[in-house]
């Protein structure tokens, strides 16, 4: 089950559901701080990057929910649901990014949270970046990316969700 590009908004059935739900959307979401879950899935224990990004997002006025290390995709998606997050950022340096990102995307859709935008970072080879973006990961920030760039991306795409 592949995920629609978040850039184009949720999938067709999601669009209809949102349209049917009517005007409450903007009223509820407009003006609230963007809420982002920053998560470390899988087995690697290198959380410096995740913490730097979490701080940068906080300093940009967002509410950042940090999950800590060694999270399963199930835990991350449950966190995103309970926290009513607009975006989920995943940091993977173990090499298991393909499986982990894919699973998080699948579970989000299954949980009815397919409109949550997903981004990520870590040591991810260029070929895999293309694969992940095709799966529905909105953006990937590999070493050298600036926090400013990440903040700008999250702000723009979470705002799209806010509609």
């Amino acid at each position, binding site marked *: 089950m592949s995920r629609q590009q978040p850039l184009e908004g949720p999938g067709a059935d999601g669009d209809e559901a949102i349209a049917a*739900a009517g005007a409450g959307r903007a009223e509820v979401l407009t003006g609230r701080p963007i809420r982002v879950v920053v998560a470390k899935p899988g087995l690697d224990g290198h959380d410096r990057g995740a913490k730097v990004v979490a701080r940068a997002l*906080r300093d940009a006025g967002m509410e950042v929910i940090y999950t800590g290390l060694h999270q399963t995709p199930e835990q991350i998606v449950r966190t995103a649901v*309970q926290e009513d997050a607009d975006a989920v950022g995943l940091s993977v340096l173990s090499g298991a990014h393909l499986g982990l990102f894919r699973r998080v995307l699948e579970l989000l859709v299954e949980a*009815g949270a397919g409109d949550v935008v997903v981004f990520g970072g870590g040591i991810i080879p260029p070929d895999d970046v293309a694969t992940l973006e095709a799966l529905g990961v909105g953006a990937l920030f590999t070493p050298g990316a600036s926090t400013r760039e990440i903040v700008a991306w999250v702000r723009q795409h979470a705002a799209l969700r806010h509609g």
Partner: protein
Amino acid sequence: MPIPPLPFDPASLVEAARAGDERALARLVSVAEGGGEPAARLARLVPFQPPASWQVIGLPGSPGAGKSSLAAALIGVYRAEGRRVAVLAVDPSSPYSGGALLGDRVRMQAHGLDDSVFIRSIASRGHLGGLSPALPDVLALVAACGYSTALVETLGAGQAEVEIARHADITAVVLAPGFGDAVQLSKAGILEIADVLVVNKADLEGAEALRRALEQALDTAAGAGDTAAGAGGPSRRLVRPTRPPVLRTCARTGEGVPGLVDALEHQLAALAASGELARRRRAAVVARIEAVWRELVSARFEDPTARARLDDLAAGVLAGDLDPYSAARQMSGS
């Protein structure tokens, strides 16, 4: 099987949340947090009708005292009793950026997949006192959705602790060795609001000394049945039917946690028997109405007609025809 994204209108969200849809509950918490007219509409849809077994446990304490770890350990015990548990972890928003880094879940992820545990991080969003103004609304929501225990974890010293004590049925102040001596403790207002005092990290050096210091402070402070001096009028005072017990816990190993749950239940029963629990719940509602009333009054300051009138009165004061006190009285009479 994908579920379609949620609607946003409160009525269908409330219906879904009551039926057990956690996404709907999570979104309603956002609605409550957002305040304004949507929150008011939501409050009309969700009157506060807690189940008979409802309990709100406040867990204030200094950063690093182990509140989140203790909350995680408490979840375990309450779940074993068959209770559904909601954890509301309140952290301050940055006064500079308005953002917040909410990390309390890190310690609770062991319960992250339990269907009967709802964990939500809440930023204070600039509210003085460190608590979210939406907290009472969120408590009403989780009560309506079938949770019987609410754990409210909050940072706190002084004012913020007093505020959590106003919204909780019972308050367990969490302390750990290494955060100052008994003088610091009495300064921070800890003794006034605690129904139970918890010395966490009991495996660390200094835990026993801290426990003794607390007992001594209790000896010299108000005795059983005395009122604690809270800010504001007598309706806000906490009355403790018994002396607060001082308990040692180690959240990491779970040691002492069942004893803490017993103590909380014992104290809650005493509060209920003495009528203090009912009085506290009423005082919490009074505080909530006051807060909303204050918001309504503040909103009048933004009214363009009132602003224009204010401007005219200011001209009068400048011309020497009027003094600021009389002008303000005219404004509030309008």
